[in-house]
C-alpha cells in the first residue's frame, strides 16, 4: 500500500479541525432560535451534509458519462467513492431532518417534497450498491453502475420538481419551500455565519473522506488483480 500523501494527511487534520470549528459555531456562537429552541441548531449540520451529498450525487452522474465514454475503470472507482460518501452524508441529512421535524411539527416524518425526494434518492443509491454487489465482472459492474447512477441522477431532480409542482396545485399544511419558510425562522447574520462555516467544513470533510475512499478503492482493485493472478 502506498503511503498516505502528505497533502492527504494535512487534509485529514484540516477536516477534523473544521468539524470542531463548525460544531463550535453551531452549538455555541449561533444564537438560540426563539420559536423552536435548541433543536434548530441541527439545521447547520443538516444543510452541510445535504449540500455536499447532493453535489456528490451530481458529480457521480457526470462521472458516469465520463466512464461510459472513456471506459477507463479509474472513473468507476471515483464514482463508487463519491456515491458511498454521499450516501453516508445524505443519511445524516435525512435523520437530522426528521429530528428537526419532531419538535417543530410534532411528527417524525413529513411527506414534503424535500424529505420525500431525499428518501427516494437514498434508496436509489442503496439500489446502486445492491446492483454492483450482484455482478462479479469488474467491467460489467462498472458499466451497469454507471448507467444506473445516470438514470438515478436524472430521476431524482425530476422527482423533486414533480412532487413540488404537485403540492402547489393542492396546497398542503406544510409549504414546501426553503428551510427558512418551513421551519418558520428567519436567519440572523450570526446564524448565516454558522451556516457558511458548516458548509465549508462539510465540503472539506467530504473531500477528505472521498480521497480516502478512492485510496480504498485502489486497494480493492489491487486485491482483485492479485486474486486473478494467483488463481490462474
Amino acid at each position, binding site marked *: 500500500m502506498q503511503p498516505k500523501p502528505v497533502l492527504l494527511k494535512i487534509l485529514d487534520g484540516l477536516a477534523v479541525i473544521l468539524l470542531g470549528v463548525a460544531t463550535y459555531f453551531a452549538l455555541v456562537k449561533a444564537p438560540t432560535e426563539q420559536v423552536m429552541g435548541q433543536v434548530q441548531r441541527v439545521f447547520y449540520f443538516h444543510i452541510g451534509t445535504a449540500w455536499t451529498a447532493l453535489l456528490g450525487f451530481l458529480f457521480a452522474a457526470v462521472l458516469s458519462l465520463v466512464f461510459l465514454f472513456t471506459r477507463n475503470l479509474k472513473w468507476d472507482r471515483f464514482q463508487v467513492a463519491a456515491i458511498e460518501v454521499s450516501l453516508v452524508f445524505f443519511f445524516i441529512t435525512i435523520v437530522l431532518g426528521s429530528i428537526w421535524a419532531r419538535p417543530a411539527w410534532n411528527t417524525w416524518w413529513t411527506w414534503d417534497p424535500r424529505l420525500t425526494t431525499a428518501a427516494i434518492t437514498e434508496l436509489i443509491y442503496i439500489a446502486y450498491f445492491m446492483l454492483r454487489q450482484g455482478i462479479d465482472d469488474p467491467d460489467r459492474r462498472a458499466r451497469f453502475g454507471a448507467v444506473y447512477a445516470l438514470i438515478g441522477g436524472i430521476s431524482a431532480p425530476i*422527482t423533486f420538481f414533480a412532487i413540488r409542482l404537485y403540492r402547489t*396545485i393542492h396546497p398542503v399544511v406544510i409549504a414546501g419551500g426553503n428551510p427558512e419558510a418551513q421551519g418558520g425562522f428567519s436567519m440572523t447574520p450570526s446564524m448565516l455565519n454558522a451556516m457558511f462555516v458548516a458548509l465549508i467544513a462539510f465540503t472539506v470533510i467530504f473531500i477528505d473522506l472521498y480521497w480516502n475512499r478512492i485510496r480504498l478503492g485502489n486497494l480493492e482493485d489491487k486485491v482483485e488483480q492479485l486474486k486473478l493472478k494467483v488463481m490462474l
Partner: protein
Amino acid sequence: MTVKSSNIVPTKTDQRSAISAPSSGNYFKAVSAVVWKDLQAEFRSRELFSAMLVFSLLIILIFNFALELDIKTRQSVTAGVLWATFAFAGTLGLNRSMTIEKDRGCLDGLLLAPVDRSAIYFGKVISNLVFMLLVEIIVLPVYSVLYNINLFQPGLLLVILLGSIGYAGVGTLLAAMSVQTRTRDILLPILLFPVIIPVLLAAVKASSGFLDGAAFSDILLPLNILIAYDIIFISVAFMFFENIVEE
C-alpha cells in the same frame, strides 16, 4: 459467443435473414423482428400474459381487504390502486420477458446481427409495452365492474398509455441489467421503483384528475411531466442500452 443450434427457433432464423443485409431499412426490420418474435412466442404459450393478469386481479383483491373503504373514499383511491397494481404486475412481465431472452439464448443471437443495439431495445420496449397494455385493458373493465366506476374515459386511457410507455421504457433497460446479475429477478423492483416515482406520481395525479372531472388546466401539468419523463428516459435508455448488452 456461439449460438447453440438447438436454441434457434424457426422464427429466429427468419428474423436473422431479414436483418442480415446491411441497409438503413434494417433498423425498422430489426425492431419489428424482435417485437414479432415476442408476440408470436407469447401467443403460443400465453404464460406471461396469464401470469400478469392473474397477479393483477389478486392485487386488486388484496387492496380490497387492505383498504376497507366506504364507496366515497374508494373513489379517491382508485387511481392509486390501479397504478400500484400496474407497477407490481409490470415487474412480473419485465422480469419474465428478459429472463426468457437470456435463458433461451435469443439475446446472444440478436447481438450477432449487424444492426444497432438500440433496435433490440426498442423492440423489447414495444413488446413489453404491448403486454402491459393488454393486461391493463382487461383489468380496467374488471375493476369497473367490481367497484361500479366507469374507467373507460379517453383521458384515463391516455394517461395509462403514457405511464405504461415510461414504465416499459425504463423497466426494459433495468430488467436487461438485473437479469444479468446474480440476484436476477429480485433486483428489478429495487432498481425500478425509486426511479419510476415521477411516472407513478404524475400518472396517479392525472388519472384521478380525469376520474374526478377536474379542470383540464390542473391535469395538464402531470400530463406534461409524464410526457417529459417518457421522452427524457427513453432517449437516455436508447443512448446507453448498448453498454448493457455487450459481451
